[in-house]
């Protein structure tokens, strides 16, 4: 009976990439030392950029507010170090685009003590104040999307959240930062979960963990308080298990209707890292100024799981790990399935940077592309039951409006289609081109 229930816990389609997690899954999280210069882009979350509240030359303490939210779908920024604001202006990001950022020169003699290490009395906060506190703590989704968490917690009147679902699936290969958090900080994860559950008024907390992390499942189960309504749900190892709508389907066997949000099926989903960040803020006053980053990949000499202050240049993080191998040809920020390549090592670690992965010629060799033979492997891979081969064909023909008719906007760009394609067609890349063109034509209709 138990096995039957486990078998049912699934979403349809998806792919099975090799995990590549052995290199780092048993390495304890280490803290990266402070460096001399930090860059905090104002738009490192989804939504409106933050607005600076400091001026050049101003001294700031570690954890001090340096930019306030620029709107509702926006969040606060805090200084990751004690130091001096050295510049406020445009800085080139990982995508090559210049965007406004606050630069901070760290004080070489500072103790780097937090400005305030007092927690917040969360129990007496109203839901509204709780949401405001999350926004002012700068907390965003730490799984990679960096969507402001307070927006997720703000549900319209009449919508009830019954389940708090904590996403510990970490389905991206190579990444082990969530895994290590679950193993090393189970109490904080469960406390953070309890704060969010009580504030949202949810009936229970469910922590979904892929079965390739048995130690995390074990440790979390051991730390559950008897009076805490928490269930640990082991999930099948399959990509993209961590996609919000997929994990909801796997755990509750419910499909979130297209164009709607998890709250429409009474669920709130948060990543493990986000929940720990919430615990850090409410229990010890630590705003979002650092995160766990996995450094790995075939081009990394010493893979590691690291606590990195936000704004630390990728170069400095890699230097701490012994640098890159000579064969390195590409550095990906995030996971190998959905991460973004960076053109420069001088870009900073952001709130959404879950991994720094170095790849060599082996992974970056452009394989010869063959014609589509309609083998339907991309259809069998797509967790949204779309027809990726058709999108690729339409995108090459620049027939973007037709792509929209076939619901291309439902695509979450998980990359399963490209992974599965035997003809090496860059399907998801072509889909991105089409979606970008559609968005551009919406913004500037001729």
């Amino acid at each position, binding site marked *: 009976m138990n096995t039957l229930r486990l078998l049912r816990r699934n979403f349809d389609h998806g792919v099975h990439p090799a995990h590549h997690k052995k290199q780092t899954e048993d390495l304890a999280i280490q803290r990266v030392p402070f460096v001399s210069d930090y860059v905090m882009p104002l738009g490192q979350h989804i939504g409106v950029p933050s607005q600076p509240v400091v001026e050049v030359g101003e001294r700031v303490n570690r954890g001090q507010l340096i930019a306030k939210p620029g709107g509702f779908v926006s969040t606060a920024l805090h200084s990751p170090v004690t130091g001096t604001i050295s510049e406020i202006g445009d800085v080139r990001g990982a995508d090559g685009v210049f965007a406004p950022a606050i630069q901070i020169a760290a004080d070489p003699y500072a103790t780097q003590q937090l400005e305030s290490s007092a927690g917040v009395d969360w129990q007496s906060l109203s839901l509204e104040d709780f949401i405001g506190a999350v926004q002012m703590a700068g907390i965003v989704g730490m799984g990679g999307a960096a969507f402001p968490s307070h927006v997720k917690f703000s549900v319209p009147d009449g919508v009830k959240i019954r389940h708090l679902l904590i996403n510990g699936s970490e389905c991206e290969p190579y990444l082990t930062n969530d895994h290590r958090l679950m193993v090393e900080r189970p109490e904080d994860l469960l406390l953070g979960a309890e704060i969010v559950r009580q504030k949202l008024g949810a009936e229970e907390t469910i922590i979904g963990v892929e079965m390739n992390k048995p130690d995390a499942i074990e440790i979390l189960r051991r730390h559950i308080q008897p009076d805490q309504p928490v269930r640990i749900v082991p999930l099948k190892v399959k990509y993209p298990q961590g996609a919000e709508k997929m994990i909801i389907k796997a755990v509750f066997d419910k499909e979130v209707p297209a164009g709607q949000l998890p709250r429409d099926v009474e669920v709130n989903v948060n990543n493990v890292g986000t929940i720990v960040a919430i615990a850090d803020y409410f229990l010890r006053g630590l705003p979002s100024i650092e995160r766990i980053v996995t450094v790995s990949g075939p081009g990394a000499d010493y893979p590691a799981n690291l606590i990195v202050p936000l704004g630390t240049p990728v170069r400095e993080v890699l230097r701490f790990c012994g640098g890159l191998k000579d064969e390195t040809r590409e550095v990906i920020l995030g996971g190998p399935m959905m991460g973004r*390549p960076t053109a420069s*090592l001088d870009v900073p670690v952001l709130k959404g940077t879950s991994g720094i992965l170095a790849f060599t010629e082996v992974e*970056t060799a452009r394989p010869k592309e063959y014609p589509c033979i309609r083998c*339907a492997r991309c259809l069998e891979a797509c967790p*949204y039951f*779309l*027809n990726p081969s058709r999108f690729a064909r339409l995108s090459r023909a620049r027939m973007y409006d037709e792509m929209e008719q076939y619901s291309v906007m*439902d695509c979450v760009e998980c990359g399963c289609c490209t992974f599965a394609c035997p003809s090496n067609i860059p399907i998801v890349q072509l889909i991105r081109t089409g979606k970008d063109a559609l968005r551009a034509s919406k913004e500037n209709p001729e």
Partner: protein
Amino acid sequence: MKQKDPDLLLLHAPLLHQGMTTPSAMRDVLYALMPVTVAALWFFGLGALLVLGACIAGAVLTEWFFSISEKRGESLLDASAILTGLLLGLTLPPGLPIWMAFLGGVVAIGLGKVIWGGLGHNLFNPALLGRAFLLATFPIPMTTWTSLRGSESFFHVSASNLALPFMQTKVDIVSSASPLGLMKFEQEVTPLTNLMFGNTLGSLGETSGVLLLLGGIYLWIRRDLDWRIPVSILLTVVMFSGGLTLVDAVRFPSPLFSIFSGGLLLGAIYMATDPVTSPLTPRGTWIFGIGVGVLVVLIRVFGGLPEGVMYAILLMNAATPLIDRYTQPRIFGR
């Protein structure tokens, strides 16, 4: 840390790949057909080798010619032309003049694939299109079934194989009707064990049902084959012909005979499953398979020809775009 950064590439994720490629899928089908091919050589001798070789040569040379003149690049490397040639050869009678076999290979690739835009763009299965051309153009040699090699030397080649182009073929071969012809015109049933292990007359590749099935299982294990297509075709044939047998067991063949005779297994496992010319969607493949099964039985039982697998598949090939259009899967959350 080194002073100079590596020149960083900006390839977009995903950087991981499952490893299987289109040419390796084509090669898998070639491997799956090896036992059947060896059996064809064993049963029919050197003549079989000449016919198969001529088909492959015709197909590969045509592919090569157009890949140069059309600047398509190295389309030979994807191994699809060799596969088309071999599949065509396996559907031909062993005694066919080799110049006809060569011409069939040329037409299969030229009219079956290249004019559509190359691999992935053709509507009809190229090998079957080549065979349809040969059957329409050379009806007599295409329906003359040479007897098995028996005790004859492997190196004995029938004179009909070596006929010169457009010359009258000297009929020196002992020929008789195939099991399907015997059934249709004389109501004579060939023993099932002969059908299963290849001890019958027929096209080069359709004599041994067991070897065809083995190759199909290999492809299924390698995930190169959509199991729904052969399963739906064979189930449809079993149920349809089973129903007919209940009506009249003398006039209509039994289901097992239907499955193991003629080109049904070859067609169902290796031709109908050609991904290019079969539907993309799971529901579509079921409809496609049922359509092929129904047409096979209809043509075999009520048509003027003893065999109907080729036309059944070609007709369903033509219906594939329409089937795809009306069987689009439901999108997640809609």
